[in-house]
């Protein structure tokens, strides 16, 4: 389905297995967060959300973030996307500081946030249109719709799509920009469990074929274990990194893999939920 030339030129053919123990500042390629702190100015007091978060995501790497609800994961993603500036610390992409949003880092939110006044096709075309290249690159819209299997729904409006289809359209809208980093904020959180498993497989194959890095926030430990090469565990707010657990298992993974089951135990322990297992 995906032609070889749609792969990013700079994408590695193999996906480096990031060593969790390795210091995050070994190079300048990929996304690097260095002692990032963030606080919101609440009316009464400052709300500290992120504390000294240092993290590196290598090109092509798949990293999952886990942490208690409200700890600051979405905030972290917004900083990486460039939608907001961190109160302190630096975030760089290939060595250059991130200070504004850029199509090389696309966010897919829990809500598909498709524009209801645009058809699926027009929604997917959004990035090309915004950058004024739609006329020349129309074919890429159809290609992106094909990638997510929505070619026959190109001309319907978003409200006519099921939840899974809408999220697939949002993925197509992101992928058409050939991002270096795909930022996923609980993208499957609202889907039923069967659709979710199906979509997990699709995200995985899109990642393997396109070679971008993924930063995934999820509340589903199984999902993180099934997809990610590394799981980063956050403390309650203000979020700081409690642990980084490499998932050194080859793809395709099996949900019943006993090694994954052991890792699940470890992850839950780190989240303070060990007894419930």
């Amino acid at each position, binding site marked *: 389905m995906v032609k070889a030339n749609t792969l990013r030129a700079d994408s590695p053919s193999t996906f480096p297995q990031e060593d969790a123990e390795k210091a995050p500042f070994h190079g300048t390629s990929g996304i690097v967060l260095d002692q990032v702190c963030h606080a919101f100015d609440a009316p009464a007091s400052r709300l500290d959300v992120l504390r000294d978060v240092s993290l590196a995501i290598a090109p092509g790497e798949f990293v999952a973030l886990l942490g208690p609800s409200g700890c600051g994961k979405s905030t972290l993603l917004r900083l990486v*996307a460039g939608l907001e500036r961190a109160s302190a610390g630096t975030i760089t992409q290939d060595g250059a500081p991130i200070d504004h949003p850029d*199509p090389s880092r*696309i966010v897919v*939110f829990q809500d598909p946030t498709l524009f209801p006044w645009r058809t699926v096709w027009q929604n997917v075309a959004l990035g090309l249109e*915004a950058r004024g290249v739609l006329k020349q690159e129309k074919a890429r819209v159809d290609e992106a719709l094909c990638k997510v299997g929505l070619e026959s729904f190109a001309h319907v409006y978003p409200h006519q799509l099921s939840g899974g289809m809408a999220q697939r359209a949002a993925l197509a809208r992101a992928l058409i920009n050939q991002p270096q980093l795909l930022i996923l904020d609980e993208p499957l959180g609202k889907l039923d469990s069967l659709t979710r498993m199906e979509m997990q497989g699709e995200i995985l194959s899109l990642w393997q074929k396109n070679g971008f890095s993924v930063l995934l926030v999820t509340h589903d430990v199984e999902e993180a274990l099934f997809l990610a090469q590394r799981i980063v565990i956050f403390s309650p707010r203000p979020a700081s990194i409690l642990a980084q657990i490499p998932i050194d298992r080859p793809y395709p993974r099996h949900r019943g893999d006993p090694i994954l089951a052991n890792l699940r135990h470890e992850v839950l322990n780190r989240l303070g939920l060990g007894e419930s297992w």
Partner: protein
Amino acid sequence: MNTSSVALDKPAETPRAKAGSGDIAVCNAAVRSTAVRRTRFYAFGLLPVAAWGLLGAITLFWPDKPSGFAEEWPCTREFGAGALTLAAFWLLLAITASFSSLPRVIERINAGFRHFAPWLIVLPLFLALWEILTAKTGALAPPFFAPPSSLIEAYRDDYARLADSAWNSIKLLLEGILWGALTGFTIGVAIGWSQRINYWLHPFLRFLGPLPPTALLPIAFFFFPSSHSASVFLIALATGFPVAILSWSGIASVNKAYYDVARTLGASERFLIFRVAIPAALPQVFVGLFMGLGGSFVVLIVAEMMGVKSGLGWYLEWAKGYADYVKMYAALILMTFLFSGLISLLFAVRDRMLVWQKGIVKW
């Protein structure tokens, strides 16, 4: 608004079901040979025929009560004949509505007839009652009351002046609405988007907005070079205020996530305004236009009554001068069609521009 178009696509089933017992066998070779199939005789369709027939009969055969200086009201015969002609036409429709597999156009007309049949019964009965109370018994006496038949005379004798007045009203109204809608929309979007513009323009909207534009009429007539330009200004004001307020609130209530999505996709500020904010705010803008239209009608008529020397408002005043109440009714009815037509036009434009809302909101 939308029910009629739905009903046109899908003929209502109820009248057909009611016709069940009154089934009359109409079947002949010609019908069979053209593959047109008779379904059930549309007996309910006979009721409009009967009602219009009754109206015609009452008008023609019940003599007018002599009143004032005339033995008979004008145009009684034309009115009666018209009612009977319509009755004959409904009979034709009732018969064709009993067949299926007809050409599409006729199918659509039939569906329309079925949809409007109940109204086509009530309307002539109302007209008949009106005719009886005025021309036939004199219970409602002239000059304040006139039978529906006499309206025909008003239109026949004074159509030139009426048409001219209506045309002048339309021109003045559209000019004012156009200016008002454009400025209102621009101002609304600007204050919805820019904090600084909001800071300077908000007080004007806050304090001048609630002032009824008609209150400014005497001053406007004094300040503007012509009563025409003064009226355009006031109509624009009446239209523009609600459009500005609702465009503003529409822009202000756009889901912030839409901007986040667009910004990560590389959207410029211009793109955010014209491709995100405005399309998202458009449903609200149309609510503002709808309200603004209502306000503009008020200003139009008052302005025409007070200073502009043409238009339907002026015509009302003119007819009042002659105590010609029939002409006033005629002008009022024309006005009703004009204004409801404009509202329908607005709805049609909205339905086209907001097709995407179908299935999200119930109109």
